[in-house]
């Protein structure tokens, strides 16, 4: 059974977070809708697969891919879209819980949260870097074919 309230709150949380980063309202709304959709997919994946790693990974892949398309069509930096869209999946809570339990002396709980934190971060970043690399390969090949040389610093 999927709870709707967290999915809806992912929308409002992302809206606030986007505006907190001083992103204009139009892009903030795009971010919020995509973030809500992304979190909905994440919840479904968690329910179907039970895997924290693969759920985060596939959501990161989907959102990164979508961000690359929107960034190119609207000529805006990908960061502007990617960080807020992944806001509900960013494991700020796990980071906090890891450190909190460390301070209150509950090493077992701290370790559990640290492992979850590592899985979340690894999966999200792998998804992002994978899409980013594929897009770079495509850009380099098309620049090479079109202009005869590569573009960009590296």
């Amino acid at each position: 059974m999927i709870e709707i309230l967290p999915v809806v709150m992912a929308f409002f949380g992302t809206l606030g977070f986007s505006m907190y980063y001083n992103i204009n309202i139009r892009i903030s709304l795009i971010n919020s809708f995509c973030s809500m959709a992304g979190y909905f997919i994440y919840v479904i994946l968690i329910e179907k697969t039970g895997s924290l790693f693969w759920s985060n990974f596939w959501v990161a892949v989907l959102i990164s891919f979508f961000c690359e398309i929107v960034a190119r069509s609207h000529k805006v930096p990908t960061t502007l879209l990617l960080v807020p869209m992944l806001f509900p999946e960013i494991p700020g809570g796990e980071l906090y819980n890891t450190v909190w339990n460390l301070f209150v002396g509950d090493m077992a709980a701290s370790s559990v949260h640290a492992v979850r934190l590592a899985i979340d971060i690894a999966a999200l970043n792998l998804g992002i870097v994978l899409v980013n690399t594929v897009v770079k390969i495509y850009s380099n090949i098309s620049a090479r074919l079109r202009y005869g040389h590569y573009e960009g610093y590296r």
Partner: protein
Amino acid sequence: MAESRDDFSNEIGNCMLRLGEMILSCGGEVSRVEDTVYRIGMAYGFRSVDCLTIMNCIIISYTDGSGNTFTQMRRVLEIKKDMEKIRACNSLSREVCREKLSPEDFNRKLQDIEELRGYRPVAMCLIYMLTSAAMTLFFGGDGADAAASAIAGIVLYLAGRFMGFVRIRNFVTGYIEAFLVGTVICLLIALGLGDNYDLISMGNIMLMISGSGLMTSIRDMINNDLISGMMGFMAAVIGAAAIALGFVSAALLFM
């Protein structure tokens, strides 16, 4: 003539560095700074452009058409996330590459970006309230928890403004902010507004803790920007430690 060409190269170098500094200080990625500086330098016909950026420092070295080499360095002391400025810098960089602006025009446009203002204080305060309340509900809190979280969000905003005013950002200020917010949450719970200290705190923490900083740092490491990645990672962990310690202290003292 040679001197004026040198001046031109120097001026453009200054502008490139200023643009890079602005991107970095607004929370842009290291690779974006390096790529922007490189593209602008090449657009102006420099023979070679090298840029090394770490978390709070940019070093550029470039050789102009006459074979003169220039090296400049800039230290970025404060990073304040502002995505709208990054977007404006990105647009300016495209414009500069396309139209090769004069140094005067380039500087004027940089000044325009620097003067961009964000949301007004009242709107910003509402944004803190909205995000804090929404994230408390997101983590499973109820209406009363969300209301307490929104009120704590106001305190968080005011504390952040004060720390910005005194221009100090370190472990201790992170701790003080978290302790203040934690104390207010304890007070609200004692007054009967909200029950779950952890869920209310979590709503506010999402604005305080650098989860995105942690993600960016790992991405930097995967992308071979090891120095920036390690520094960002340490900054995020130290920041999280300060915040957690602040909340733990408030809870132990007042709960």
